């Protein structure tokens, strides 16, 4: 069964304390992996998309990496404004030629000043 699992569920960091969020997946026909940031009561905001193992993307304090089984979102020297829920999703190609998106339940990140 296609599945996306994110860990940890919640993470509290001190400002400046770097860490990583994990997204492991089991899916056939992976077309892409996506990271989103979601603030409370808001829609998810697109951060990165990764298409192949070994690929990396960076944006400010965030860096996303991809292997054949998992993706990491590295947060370097986080600030309180980085506090949010980070969602991971994969796009899987179905035998019918269509595709579907599968989301993880997210990691709630809290960065303390």
């Amino acid at each position, binding site marked *: 069964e296609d599945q*996306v699992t994110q860990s940890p569920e919640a993470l509290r960091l001190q400002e400046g304390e770097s860490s990583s969020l994990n997204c492991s997946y089991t899916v056939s026909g992976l077309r892409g992996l996506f990271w989103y940031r979601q603030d409370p009561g808001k*829609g*998810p905001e*697109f951060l990165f*998309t990764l298409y192949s193992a070994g690929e990396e993307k960076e944006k400010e304090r965030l860096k996303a990496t991809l292997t054949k089984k998992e993706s990491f979102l590295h947060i370097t020297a986080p600030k309180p404004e980085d506090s949010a829920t980070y969602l991971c999703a994969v796009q899987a190609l179905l035998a019918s030629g269509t595709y579907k998106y599968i989301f993880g*339940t997210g990691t709630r990140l809290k960065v303390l000043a």
Partner: protein
Amino acid sequence: SQTIHQWPATLVQPVGSPLSLECTVEGTSNPNLYWYRQAAGRGLQLLFYSIGIDQISSEVPQNLSASRPQDRQFILSSKKLLLSDSGFYLCAWTGGVQLAKNIQYFGAGTRLSVL
């Protein structure tokens, strides 16, 4: 640039009342459109997706329905709301250029409370 609008932002409805949530996309044509529901502590659950007018697929059996009266308009409806319909509803679209075609962009969401 493309933008997605979703309304209302919040809605409180009694059990058994009808529902209509609307989503429109601007700045693109023939987008793929999606309705999701997000429950606390759970991932996004796909409800409906549409690859064109009159082409709507349902993922989860329920008392909700979707319609696409225009190319860039997607509506989520119900004739009679249940308590279990409470949640955060999100509209999304794909269809950008080149590799970005498969990136989903989300609206601001609608918080629905059924009482």
